[in-house]
């Protein structure tokens, strides 16, 4: 089995969501080093994920380098201005609010959250299965 065959099979398993994180890293490494259009799509996806990992790693290194000095300076500054120190970074890195609608990306939080609310209400507003049955019948 050639490398290409091996990684094509692995890529197929990735699309079926059956790969392990280690296999995904291996696939990302292969996709990055070959100039093969068959791997262009997976290169984009895994490249995006690895950018996220790299940012996290860089952030961790930065924190280690400046940890003591920055924390000490922050405490002094916070006491001086009478504020509590809060680490704002935690929680924000996982914030996401996006809609992909027939090829168009939207980040309009208000619109997206309004549609989220409507969708949730549709499922959890307490209408019984009998109500749903009647609705289906009248919609037909």
């Amino acid at each position: 089995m050639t490398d290409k065959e091996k990684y094509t099979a692995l890529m197929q398993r990735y699309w079926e969501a059956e790969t392990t994180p280690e296999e995904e890293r291996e696939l990302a490494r292969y996709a990055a080093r070959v100039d093969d259009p068959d791997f262009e799509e997976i290169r984009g996806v895994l490249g995006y994920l690895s950018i996220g990992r790299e940012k996290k790693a860089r952030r961790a290194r930065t924190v280690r380098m400046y940890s003591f000095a920055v924390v000490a300076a922050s405490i002094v500054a916070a006491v001086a201005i009478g504020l509590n120190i809060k680490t704002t970074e935690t929680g924000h890195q996982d914030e996401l609010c996006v809609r992909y609608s027939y090829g168009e990306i939207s980040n309009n939080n208000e619109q997206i959250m309004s549609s989220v609310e409507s969708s949730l209400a549709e499922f959890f507003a307490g209408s019984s299965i009998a109500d749903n049955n009647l609705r289906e019948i009248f919609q037909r």
Partner: protein
Amino acid sequence: MALLLIASTSWAQKGLNCYPVFRGKVVPAKRMVVTEVRGESMATYKLDYYHSVQFQVDEATAMKVAELILADADAAESAETERTGELLTYALIQPTPFARVRRYLCYQARPAGPAWIITILYLEGSATLEDLRSMFEKQ
């Protein structure tokens, strides 16, 4: 961009049979409305993650999607399902919690002429089913 959006999917969602639908493997991503919200915006609902897809398909594709949903219902902690004729038209599924996080899979198929409009929501968070129902029944 579709790939970037889909790539951020929750790890817990990957184990579900209907996961390929969210990945655009059953209906192409360009023919779907995909919504993904994570973080503080969902805290109001005691949820951490919301991922939905909506698309219009013919009956054969609708049946294919319904089979995946039914497979998740079979493996779930609890599931309410409803059919119209042969087709699954409604499902509220609670897959087993993942790392103590509650998960919900909501499915609806509505007729639109000869086609079907399918909506699937995947939710993660601490909210119980009772929490979600009481939040919305007052509205």
